[in-house]
Structure formats: structure tokens, C-alpha cells
């Protein structure tokens, strides 16, 4: 039962208040995209053991979607941030690099 802080309302939300939305920062491929691009968008997921970026919705709270960076192995949460972005905030990336020197980054 994870605790994730909703960056909108500031509530330290318990997992039962949240719905999970899978991997964050996927780029949508619509009509005109190649089969490979569409396949990657629809089905290919990173599923790492370690640093991961995920979509969560504060479904039984303020209703907002937000993104979370956490370690899938230890469950350490590095930070949460609003969903209206295509990549994690730079300061969060720096924080994760400091804690996980082996991490290869988001790219």
C-alpha cells in the first residue's frame, strides 16, 4: 500500500485512493504512424527493476492525474509531479541520479 503525495492537493494519498495508469511519458502515435511506432506506443513497456516513472490518478481525492518517480525494487519514491509535461522535471532527474548513480536516465 504505497503512499504518494498528490502534487495538486498536497494530500499524502494512500494507494486505495489512487488508480494506477501504467508507464508515464509515452508518446501517442496516431494515424500515419508506422507499425513499429504504433506497436511501441500500444504495447512496449519498460518494466524496469529500479527507477520507473508512472501515471497515477488521485481518483478518490481531487481527481487529478499526476506522475510519480519511484524505485520498483525498494518502493522508494523520488518524487511526484503534475502530468502536464512530456518529461520529468530536471531537479527530480538530478535527485534520482544522486541517489542512484547507476541509473541510465530517462532517454
Amino acid at each position: 500500500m504505497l503512499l504518494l503525495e498528490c502534487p495538486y492537493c498536497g494530500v499524502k494519498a494512500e494507494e486505495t485512493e489512487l488508480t494506477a495508469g501504467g508507464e508515464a511519458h509515452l508518446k501517442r502515435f496516431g494515424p500515419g504512424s508506422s507499425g513499429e511506432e504504433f506497436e511501441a506506443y500500444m504495447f512496449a513497456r519498460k518494466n524496469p527493476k529500479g527507477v520507473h516513472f508512472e501515471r497515477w490518478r488521485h481518483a478518490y481525492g481531487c481527481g487529478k492525474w499526476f506522475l510519480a518517480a519511484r524505485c520498483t525494487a525498494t518502493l522508494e519514491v523520488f518524487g511526484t509531479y503534475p502530468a502536464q509535461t512530456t518529461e520529468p522535471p530536471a531537479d527530480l532527474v538530478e535527485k534520482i541520479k544522486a541517489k542512484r548513480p547507476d541509473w541510465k536516465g530517462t532517454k
Partner: protein
Amino acid sequence: MSTRLSKGGRLIDRTAPQEFTFNGKRMRGFGGDTLAAALLANDQMLVGRSFKYHRPRGIVASGAEEPNALVNMGEGGRFEPNQRTTTTELFDGLTCTSQNHWPSLEFDVGVVNNYASRFLPAGFYYKTFIHPRFAWKHVFEPIVRQSAGLGKVPKDRDADRYEQAYAFCDILVVGGGVAGLQAALTAAKAGKSVWLIEQTAHWGGRAVVDGAVIEGQPAEAWVNAALQTLERMENVTIRSRCMAAGSYDHGYVLCDEKVADHTPGDGRPRHRLWRLRAGQIIAATGAIERPLSFAGNDIPGVMLAAAVRDYLVNWAVAAGDRTVVVTNNDDAYRTAIALKEAGLEVPVVLDARASVSGELPARARALGIRVETGRAIAKVKGGKRVTGVAICAQAGQGAVIEEIDCDAVAMSGGWSPVVHLWSHCGGKLKWDDAQAQFAPDKARPPINHDGGALVLTAGAASGVLSTADVLADATEAAGGGAVPAAQDAAEGAMEPVWVMPQGAPVALRMKMWLDYQNDVKVSDVQLAAREGYTSVEHTKRYTTLGMATDQGKLSNINGLAVLADSLSAPIPQVGTTTFRPPYTPVTIGALAGEARVDIFQPLRRTPIHDWHVAQNAYLEPVGLWQRPYCYPRAGETHEQAVHREVKNTRSNVGLLDASTLGKIIVKGPDAGKFLDMLYTNVMSNLAVGKCRYGLMCNEQGFLSDDGVVARIDEDTWLCHTTSGGSDRIHAWMEDWLQCEWWDWQVYTANVTEQYAQIAVVGPKARQVLEKLGGMDVSKETLPFMQWADGTLGGFNARVYRISFSGELSYEIAVPASEGRAFWDALVAAGAEFGMMPYGTEGLHVLRAEKGFIMIGDETDGTVIPQDLNLGWAISKKKADYLGKRGQERPYLASPDRWKLVGLETLDGSVIPDGSYAPAPGMNANGQRNTQGRVTSTYFSPTLGKGIAMGLVKGGLSRLGETIEMTRLDGSTMQVKIVDPVFYDKEGEKQNV
């Protein structure tokens, strides 16, 4: 024999006698007794039979780790099996029976398994599954079914209630021994909010029994003072009889508080399940003593040394008159000393170590107790109770040196820290050679959300044993502070002993029990190793070691040490099995809490619900909604009611409570653009005042929901969704608006429950509304697929001319608060026109007669709109919509796809639900090929015959063809492919 001593017993109240029965036999105990203490006080050494061999079993331990002394507790609605007598507090009138025997505890037929034990080795179950083939079903299974199973299953509804509660704290301290008390004091004094819980009714743990001295006073005095201090602190919450069952991610801890187990029927909830969220957990959960593996170590009267001491000191119960102590460490000498000082006989202390020189052995010798070093038990003598021991050299193979009569054996193989809460959420263990134990590796704790340690251990749970070390460790775990001074006897080094004697032959190893509850012996683990089970997890499952209700609290370390020895591998390399919650079993009632019977789940009811109930409607669940299926009249079957309702709607007028229909308002400057992405057709060009049917797909292109959209004003649309889909579709909209098109100016609101929506359906629908009066509902002013605001019978109403039945139909939305009154007005106005309400089944029949699809019937998550001949609802002009790219995948354009058709049997009968159309040949898995299936099938009262919709390979290109379909029972029927629109193909009736 075990007996109550005339003096002592720190927990019992001799002025409060309590009567109870065991297997119908009346017995007496005292207030403060555990059931186990009271049974021993009544010389009830034999308390149960073992699981597999039905061997006589007695009480081994004094706490939660007890593997043997499980009983059926109570009667009727308060009956519960597998209750540990060692953790059950005695109360007046308690009734219990022993388990796992037939016909009686004293004479058990199943004991024949004992003599056949060489035919029931490790992996017995798995082996019998395999060969000989017939044997499992006809020989082994009936025997296993007859004899297996601990306890009986309760038959009556639980008479008790259970409650659940949430709580939060900075620090949760689990365990009320001196470590837990000191940790709680330290954290509380630092200003933290602290919860302190203890699984028993008493405080102080081992220290108060073993006579430690803390700050110059007996441990008990220090414990009482500490407890008083904590009770006075506002930032401390204290709960006894409260067991931490498991620790989970980010400090979530499930705690089972046994509120009224000891006062049944007093009106309080029996248990209270706490869902605790702790900033940090301090596990001061102590340690559990390990048995020693010698032949006959399961005979009633063989007990853990510390348990013998507990019964003596806490409850003034002597396990025997003559107790032999057998040990590999100094701590067991405390038992010998306590027994001797209580005036009981200790014929000998058998110490497996070659030499002993500690303070405690010296004290024992000074009391005149005979101490034999380098000695072991070759064999315990006795059947249903211990009669003596045969002594041998630990270093040898069991040649008997001497036999000694005794009626109890107190054994100690060292101590294992209780690391469950540490391990549940990922804390790592390390092997400690000096204590021969797995202890928490403090460098690798479970991780909290902030990256810090989620669980810390304190005291014996950390692997430290002396009172001074325990208090220092607990203080440090709680953040540091003053450590109370403590003294107890200095102990010499222990020496691991995993098999006794060291070179025991197989005849002895077959009588050495590792797991008492599941009847796993040293020889079983050794056999598993020989058969190639090198992983501890595999060995556990193969032998069932540690898989009983005690989860191997006594057996795990001994078992894996034997496995490691058999594999010639070091113990840390073999490792432990995974620790999983709960620490001790939690009754299902506590987990269910108040969520049972009427409040098992929340129910959604429309504003008109009470009317339906008053009309004796037959209700069916639709998601969490309760909807009328039909309204049977006196003497009518449900089927007859549905037929009447359908016919009346087609010929007169019907009334449907459609309030559950999803209603989502989409508003804003970009709302039209947004809906064009959401729906497969165009919604942005819908004129104000008009309605349009739309389809929503997921990104794979598969049909997800449908409904009619109404343009309310320049920047507002109202989207109807399916009854079950409103929450999902609203969330879907929000997902895209928040996470993909966050710069679009659109707002959504799910107003499903804000409106009651009522469908007035049938040729006389207009007459009913005109009778109510107030607004023009004529064809000219309000034609099909338009809507208008106005009043009807004085109610503010929004009237949609939409139809899911093919009839002249008005769906009328009024504020939810007025829904019932408006319904009543309609019922009154409709009486002269023969209006009748119809339910969800009638709705289904009406739509199927018209060939209208139903999400969830015709769709299953793999169907695209094109499969359902709904290509007309897909825009060809739009560059993009959700699902468009997915639908462009080549295989979705295949002519071989199964497509929507109508189906009819040749004789007019109804095709059974679930019917499939087989095709020639077999697939790669050797199954029959198929070419279609039924998706909706009904008897049409309008047409007087069975009608169905289905998905068939090739779809309507095969119109007129007859194919074979199979019923679920395998029989076949001939089915004709027809137009799915069975009634009013031109759609004239809805457009009047």
C-alpha cells in the same frame, strides 16, 4: 504428571476460579490462566493428534509459536477451529474439543498411519498423484480426504461482529517486552506520536519471568513503572491483545486486536482490525526458542525449556514432577534452577556442549542439580506421555549410556529472532554464527517511501539476548537516549546442535520431528535433499515443512539447518524461506469487518427505487445499481411478465426507469474538438437542439462504449453512456484531457446521479405526455433525434426524442429530487392509455428485435465497430480519433472477421446462450474450428419466435445461409443467417 502448585503464579487470580470443558470433561482453572496453562494444571498432557500420522501430541510452547495444542473453540455461531490454547485466555464457561482424531483423542484409528509412516514419506502427495495412475483417485484420495484437515469447518453464521479502524502514528512499536517499552518511552519522550501494541494481555515479555534486574529493581517493577509513564503520555496509544499481522509498503500495518475473545457475547466487537499507517515500525517482537531434534521429541511432556519456565512462574503449573533439561545453551539452566527452587525435581541437565562454565550452570550445580556435558537424548520413552529418557553421547550414534525416569523434558536449541515484520516488506537477514540464528542485517532494512529504513528491530528481535543489550538496542532503534542499567547472569557461548545425537542412524532420525503440526521429520528433509530438492523453497513445498498454520515458527531454522547439512552447504547459502503475513492467523470475520450481509458492498439506487420495490419488481444488479428486471404480477412467471411488458410497449405504452444511464456534460471552447477525438463520428457539427448516436473506441480501435450525444448550447454537449460505463468513460475523458491535450479548454462533469431519466415508450407515448401538458411534444416541434427543455405536468424537464426500442420514445430528464414525483405523475397520466412499466429484460428484448447492439453483449473488447456493421458511424473525413490508428491494422480489415448477423432457428425455437458454430477441421491445439457464436438470444413476444444476434465469419455476405450451431450440451441445431433487424426494418415506428 503436570499439576498446579499451591503457591506462586504471577498472572493467576486464585480467588477467581473458572470452569471449562475439554472434550466434554469439566475442568477448573483460574482467572489469568491461558487455556494451555489450565489444561496442564488439570494434567491434560495429551491435547491433540498430529496431522499425518495422528501421533499423540501435547503442549510444546507457551505462546503464539505453539504447533500442537490447537482446539475447536466454542459452539454454534461462536465455533472456531484451530485456536491455539497457548494464546487463548481462559474464561468461565469455555468449551473446547481436541482436533484431528477419530473416534476419540485417546483411541485414534488414524494412528495406523504412524505404523505405516515409511509409506508416507516426504512428497507423499505428489508421488501418489503420479503412479500408479488409478491409485490417487481410488485409493489415496479417499484416505487423505478422510484423515486430513485440522479442525472442523464452522457451519453456522458467525454470531459476532467485527470492526475495522484506521490510525496513524510516527512510530509503531510492536511488542510489549522490555525492548518495546523502552523503545516506546524513548520515542515518546522525543515527542513522537507512538503506538505500542502487545499480542498478549500482559506486559514485560521474558524479562519478568526470567528475573532480570533493571535500574536496581526487579524487571516487573520497572515494567509497571514504564507502562504507567506511557499511559500518562498524550502522544502514546497502548493496545494489548493486539497482534501485528503484517507490515506492508510504506508503513502500512495490519493489526488484529482481540477485543472480546476472552469475554464472548458481552456486546463488544470480537476483534478490531486496525489499518495502521506508521512513519516507522519498531519490531520489538522478541525471539522464539528452538526445539532440539532427538528421537521422540514430539511425545507429550516434551516442551520448550522457556515454556516450562513460563508455566511455572506465570501460572504456577509444573509440567512434570521430574523434568529432564536438555540444552545446547546456558539459558535453559534458568528452567532447571526455577524448577529446583520451586521444589520440583530435575534429575539431570543434559548439555550437548563438551564443557560449560557459565554463571547459570554454576548456580545449577550449586543447587545440587546433576549436569552432564557432551550428553544427548538418544530417545524419549513413552507414548501418550513421557516416561523417561535414554541418554547417549552427543558425539556418537546413540548408544544408550543410561536411562532416567522422568515425566517431562525441557529442551532448548537456542533462540531465533522473530523477524517477520522486518522481512514482510523486504528487510534482509544475515547469519549470526555465535547465536546460530538469522538476524536482521541492519545495513539492509526494508525501505520507506523516503528511502530511509521502514522497519527497525529492537531487543531480542535484533538478535541480542542479555537485558542490558536489549535495552541499549531498543533505545538506539527509537532514536537514542538514556539507557537504563540492567544486570542478568552472564551467559557462555551456545553451540549449534541440529541433530541429537550427531551421528543418529535413520531409525532415530525417523522419530525426530522438525515440524510438529505437519509431521515433517529430519528424515523427510534428508530424503528431499537426496531426491534433488536443493532449494529451501522447493524443499518446503515438497515436505510441507513450515506450511501449517504455525508457518514453521519452531521448525524453519532447524529444517533448513538439516537441509544445509544434507547438501554440505553453509546455512546462509541455503537461506530461509520467505516470511509472509499474517504472523498468526487472522480470522476471516476480522478481515471482512462490517462488510457483510446488507452492507457487503455499496448499492446504487435510482430516485424511483422504492416504487419498484413496492411494485414487487424483480431486481437485478447492473454494476452496483439495482434495476428492475421485470414487474411480475400475481401468478406470473418472470418470463411471462417480460412478454407482457414487451407486447404492451409495442402496442400501447411502456415506462422505463432509465436513470442509471450515464450522463456526462462536456463543456468549453474546445469541447467539440475533444468530442471529435473521443467519438468515431463527428460531434462538433451537431446543431444545438439535436442528438446523434456515437461510438467510443479505445486506442486499439475496439468498441468501448456507445450512446446518444445532445448538443445543449454553443459550447456544451451532453454525452449519454451505458449504465455501467459512466464512471469509466468519465475517467477516460479526464485522462485524455489531463495527460494528453492539457492545453485544450474543456471541462467534464459526470451528472449521472443528478438526474432521474424516464423513458416513455410506445405508440401512445405522445398522448401520455400531452395529457401531462406543458410543452409541445409534437412531431413538428420535437422530431426524432432532437431534444427540448420545457415543463411537463409542472415539472421542469429536458425531453429527448431518442429510442432504444424502435418505438415512438421520449426520454425525459428531471432533477433527481423530483424523479419519484414525476414518475408518479406519469403513472397516473398513463393509466387510461394502458401504460405499464417494463424492466431491463424487456429493454433487452425490444432492442434485440430492432438489431440494436448492447455493449458487453455484442462487444467483448476484441470487436471493432466495423464488425457490427456500424461503419456508418465512423467518420472517413476525420484525420484522427481515438482508435483510428488501431483500426488501420491489416488484420482488422480481414474479410474473415466475425461480423454481426441475425440468427434464427428453423423451427422458431430460442438458440441457447453460449451456442457456437463449429467449422470443419481442427486447430493447432486439436480443438474444433469455429466460425461464429451467439451474442444475444431471446424469445421475441412481438414476432412469436426465437431471435438472436451473433458474430459469424463473413457476416451478412452469408445472408440466407443455414449453418450448424452446437448447444452447450454438444447437441446441434440448424440456424439461418438473417438480417439482425427483426422488426420494423425501415424504422418507421420511432419516427412518428
